[in-house]
């Protein structure tokens, strides 16, 4: 082991390249998916691709800035950030603008900000801070439950929007981080047992009608092929018809003839699978896998528990969103509106994830001693 007292200034270019590649991949799919609405790439700044690229630039600037910023400074700031993000979630419930029957956005500076995206990172930081402060008392039930509440409050606020998908993200973040932080297996097992027992009851009791319908249509989209089952069926047809190599970018019949709905956001993966085929989808999954493993590498190399927990938290919500979003597209999970990280159209998610990766770069670059990890 080689000890040093100065920051390493190390920067993970592979992580950066994977993120940039995914962003470009996404921009191409957004371009293809918006052809029917916007025609050829206009000069207009309002074109979804130019907007997405502008957000990507902001996100990359934030990433580089955060990489130079010592992540440890987030420790004292964590509570403030957490409370601010909760305020944002409350605010959106009061004044947010709605789309598809839920309030998720705050109009701001000519665009719309989705506070739940920011809240994910703030909650990761808050939990990391709480766990690292209580490392010696991880066996205590009180710590276990307090950390659960930290994640449950934003989850509950997001659920009220209602946005079930994002609410589940907070749960996943907590589970991943509490495992790494070292919770007692008996606590974890008890919690899982309780959740499993409550799951069926809970879903049917608190879920809105639209979610009940979502699940029954998910099980059999042909019940309502022109209505609620339309998106599910058409996404499945889009993906399946892509075959090995796809129909070629901008040549997907499903995408270009508008059979696929929300093809730049929730169903952007279907565009890729139809036009670029199984191989294109494998490339996308490969890039995600690479990025996620590089996140875990950061966790493994981190100096301290705070950094490691942040890295795992970020990794876990990206992984979960990738799985749920693609899973919805390929009818592996019921319809849940979760964006595909870096790929789906939408500034809040893109900037938040790029910025989070900047924090991970900071963790890597501000180690005080060099060690080897996988």
């Amino acid at each position, binding site marked *: 082991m080689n000890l040093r007292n100065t920051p390493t200034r190390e920067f993970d270019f592979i992580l950066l390249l994977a993120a940039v590649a995914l962003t470009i991949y996404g921009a191409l799919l957004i371009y293809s998916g918006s052809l029917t609405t916007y025609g050829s790439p206009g000069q207009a700044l309002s074109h979804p691709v130019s907007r997405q690229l502008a957000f990507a630039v902001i996100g990359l600037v934030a990433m580089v800035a955060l990489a130079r910023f010592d992540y440890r400074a987030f420790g004292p700031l964590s509570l403030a950030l957490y409370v601010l993000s909760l305020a944002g979630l409350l605010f959106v419930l009061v004044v947010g603008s709605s789309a598809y029957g839920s309030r998720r956005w705050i109009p701001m500076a000519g665009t719309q900000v989705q506070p739940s995206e920011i809240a994910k990172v703030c909650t990761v930081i808050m939990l990391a801070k709480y766990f690292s402060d209580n*490392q010696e008392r991880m066996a205590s039930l009180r710590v276990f439950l307090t950390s659960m509440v930290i994640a449950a409050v934003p989850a509950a606020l997001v659920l009220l929007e209602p946005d079930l998908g994002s609410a589940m993200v907070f749960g996943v973040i907590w589970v991943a981080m509490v495992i790494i932080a070292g919770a007692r297996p008996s606590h974890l097992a008890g919690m899982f047992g309780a959740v499993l027992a409550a799951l069926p009851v809970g879903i049917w009791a608190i879920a809105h009608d639209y979610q009940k319908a979502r699940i029954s249509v998910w099980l059999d989209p042909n019940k309502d092929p022109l209505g609620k089952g339309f998106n599910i069926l058409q996404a499945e047809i889009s993906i399946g018809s892509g075959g090995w190599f796809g129909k070629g970018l901008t040549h997907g019949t499903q995408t270009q003839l508008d059979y696929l709905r929300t093809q730049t956001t929730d169903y952007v993966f279907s565009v890729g*699978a139809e036009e670029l085929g199984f191989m294109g989808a494998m490339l996308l999954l490969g890039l995600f896998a690479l990025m996620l493993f590089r996140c875990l590498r950061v966790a493994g190399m981190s100096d301290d528990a705070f950094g490691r927990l942040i890295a795992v938290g970020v990794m876990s919500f990206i992984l979960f969103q990738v799985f749920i979003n693609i899973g919805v597209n390929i009818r592996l999970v019921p319809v849940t509106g979760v964006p595909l990280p870096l790929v789906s159209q939408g500034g809040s998610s893109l900037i938040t994830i790029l910025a989070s990766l900047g924090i991970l770069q900071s963790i890597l670059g501000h180690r005080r001693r060099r060690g080897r990890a996988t």
Partner: protein
Amino acid sequence: MGVLTNRRRRWRSEYTEAADPRQQINRKLWVMRFAIVLAFAALVVQLARLQIVDGAQYRQRAALNQIRIEPVSPSRGLIYDRNGVPVVQNVPSFSAVAIAADIPKPREVAIAGGLQQLTGVPALETIMKIEQARQSNDPFAPVTIKDGMTADETFHLREQLAELPGVQVAVQPVRQYTGGPELSDILGYTGRVDPQDYATLKGKGYLASDYLGKAGVEAAYESYLRGLPGRQEVEKDATGRQIRVLGTQPAQPGDSLKLSIDLDLQKKVAQLLAATPNGGQAAAVVMDVHTGEVLALVSLPFYDNNVLSGKINETTLEQYLHDPNKPLVNHALAEQYAPGSIFKQITGTAALQEGVATPSTTILANGYINVPNDYDPSIVYTFRDWNTFGPLNFYGGVANSSDVYFYYLAGGYHAYGQNFNGLGIDRLVKYAGYYGIGRKTGIDIAGEADGVLPSPAWKKATFGDDWRLGDTYNMGIGQGFVAATPIQMVRITAAVANGGTLFTPRVVSEVRDAQGHIVVPNEPKIESHIPVTAANFAVMRDAMAQAVLWGSAHPAFEPDLKIAGKTGTAEFGPRHPDGSYDTHAWFSGFAPADNPQIAVTVFLLNGVGATNAAPLGAKILDYYLHRPQPQTAAAPPSGDILPGSAP
């Protein structure tokens, strides 16, 4: 450093506990790596299943998704008169249609509202139609929202189509009849498929929005006129907008019809008939005695079939339905009347054939006969003649149209010392049957009536009463129960003229396909030969010629044309206080008398045969045989006239 629980890691039991905190952390990070691999493996497996294992099936579904097979309506065959003059054309009509499956449900109300603004159709009505179509098993079938849109409405709707997904402007050819209202009763009209008939017609490839023949020739020749629908493969986007046509199996245009009707004669007959003061309900039919082709068939009053085809004019339709003269009824074939004395052609030829009478059989016709009751001779029935003639032979009997003469022939006379054997009811019924009384002629116009052929069994079944001698007398002179249509009577006269051939009348002489090939050739359709000898027919023809020359049909005399004919004045309806009845006027004759070419039957609902019907019949025969040769149209209906080509 994260502090671990002091438990063994079950998945890596070979490691010793807490050797190095970093090692412990790494082990926990393996849980995360495992989670990534597991999640991605699930995604890859499902993707491979969709894209590789079932890829072909999804590709097919994607192709089916955007490709719709749409029927292409064939253009309806055209109709020409016997000289090649077109009497109908197809003109485009614009309608707003909705395809329920293409209308996004959340926008349905907005779309219906938009349609209300553009076409004036109440939004609620549109929504109900769309909802009904959604629930049907074919939500892709177009539903007509508004028919017969004006050019303005069409223009504005087309401009707004982008805002109205699922709405289309349908262009459909509709019939425009150019031959004049005189042809309405022959041609009939077309109309939309009735919803209650749609179930059966669907199997024949009709769409709910299609037109089909509803009356006349349009209905009778529907299977020829319609043609074969084609199919078109169209690529559509999710809102039903057409992207491009991928392939077309063209529709086969309908066959064109050549009418046997002579448009010029038809108009002349209509004009003559309309000019009679006895107007109202009337009919006249002219037939070629050698072929059974109908040269003219007129029923008064006319209706305008353009009013009933395509977009129906409700006001005019109401007028038609309430007119006491029933313009929508074809009086030449759809209604039956007492034929009166023109029935004597049947009684006369039957009597000659059966030997009841010879040309020289003389009967004293003193204006009436008395018949005592079989059981109570003190009760005496009197059967009147329309005049007193004295002794008459067969020619005299026919020429004067003596009722007494025909009472004898039909029923015989056995009273007051006389003993004349008549035909009797059975033989009279048999011969009336030979001539086609009481059954449809089979003319190729829909809606024909049967007429009535009475008999003892028929009377028993209908009235529960026995047949009496008086019934035979009445039938012998075309009164009483017997009833016939003008088309039945004209073919009887044609049969007398041609020596006994009973034709199935035709108004369509020939059917050709779009390439001009003959589908149905122009051949006479002979129903039967009447078992009466040529000599006996000749006697009847001679007697009918004498009727015109000097007898009761003399008003039909034309100086430069030998006409043979028989008038009829048939009593009908309730008896008036002065003992008289309303009468139908009939004339049935042919010309030239010595070399018959055409036969005509004229019927006026109210009138006297000799005064009203006979002159009309004569003028019709004279016009046809003496008019300047009708202009023949430039081209006969053949390959160079494409049916259905409309401006």
